[in-house]
């Protein structure tokens, strides 16, 4: 069984666009080979794809549902659905984008179910970061000096709380754009919206985030 590379990985903001493009192309070609093998029924190839992408999928789902146990289950569900839908995957989109699209559906199905079970109301506690165990292995870990770490933790808490204050649609576009670094077209493919809707959502999501993070700025 293949294992993941590292525990947490920040979105790449340092590499040059060219370097990132080359890296992205390498990753895509590696994915294409494994996808072709998995489509031919090779479970080991699919296992490699799971190991490679599980970190991003789990992080995205965790940031949407804010519960590590649910994120664990939903991520697995996303990969199982991906396996079932793999014969239909035609490599027009990146494999990771396609996985994000499946994850989006899994998360929204789960949220819809919770709404129904919650008698038509979404339980806001789901997104309350204070409910997440700070010692949970899914919480971001930092090895910064104590004062810096404290500031970082405060900022982390503020941002998580602000993200929790957004609607799912707004939170999702922010995460896909700022955290996963996807372009508008990819976000549109994942969320099933037009590029215009994506940009509009980004605009309002940022406004809302600002109003939560800097209430005096309005």
């Amino acid at each position, binding site marked *: 069984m293949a294992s993941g590379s590292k525990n947490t990985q920040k979105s790449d903001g340092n590499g040059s666009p060219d370097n990132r493009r080359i890296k992205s192309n390498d990753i895509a070609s590696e994915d294409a080979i494994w996808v072709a093998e998995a489509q031919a029924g090779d479970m080991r190839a699919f296992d490699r794809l799971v190991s490679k992408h599980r970190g991003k999928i789990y992080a995205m789902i965790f940031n949407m549902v804010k519960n590590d146990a649910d994120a664990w289950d939903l991520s697995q569900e996303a990969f199982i659905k991906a396996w079932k839908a793999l014969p239909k995957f035609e490599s027009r989109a990146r494999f990771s984008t396609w996985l994000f699209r499946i994850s989006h559906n899994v998360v929204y199905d789960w949220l819809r179910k919770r709404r129904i079970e919650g008698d038509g109301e979404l339980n806001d506690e789901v997104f309350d970061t204070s409910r997440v165990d700070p010692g949970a292995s899914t919480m971001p870990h930092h090895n910064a000096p104590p004062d810096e770490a404290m500031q970082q933790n405060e900022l982390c808490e503020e*941002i998580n709380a602000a993200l929790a204050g957004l609607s799912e649609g707004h939170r999702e576009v922010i995460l896909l754009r700022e955290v996963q670094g996807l372009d508008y077209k990819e976000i549109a493919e994942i969320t099933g919206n037009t590029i215009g809707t994506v940009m509009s959502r980004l*605009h309002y999501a940022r406004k809302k985030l600002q109003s939560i993070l800097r209430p005096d700025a309005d």
Partner: protein
Amino acid sequence: MKKEPDQTTLTQWIDGELVGEELQRVETWAQNHPELLAERDAIQAMNQSIRATIPASIEPPYGDFFNERILRHIESEQLTQAPTLAPKRRIWQWLMIPTAAAGMAFCFYVGTRVAEPTSITSPANIVVSSIYTPDGDVSADIFRAEGAGATVIVLKGLTDIPDDLEMVGNPATDSSNGASMASISTSY
């Protein structure tokens, strides 16, 4: 640019996605609207904080078990599906029902034939030709009473029945299968 740029144009401008004439127009507009520049800077700083705070990748706990569970689930689903055998199995299921019913009926018929009492097995009609007596001093004579439908066996050479033998109860008769049987309990 005379008109304020719309929200999608502003979003593209903040994200650095605008190029060419459109970029020039927005930049010109922003020069006369410092609040727009301030907003862009604030949003870019906020985006930077989000990127620095929220990890893009989090390794799920128990990664190997995570994969193992997915593969096991897929394998179990593949086993339960077995698509090519399904239609044949359905035909067999349809054939099994009448076959089983016919088998049961046959077994029932055979059972009734075997268990049915016949005149040969009726105790009243048994023709006893010889009787074995373990004690050599004892002999047995057989009398067939046709009218009564009974066979009487008379044993000779038995020791006398002691006087203190107590006969308990009445003869119990069992008239099932048309036969008559009698039994007496004895005790000393």
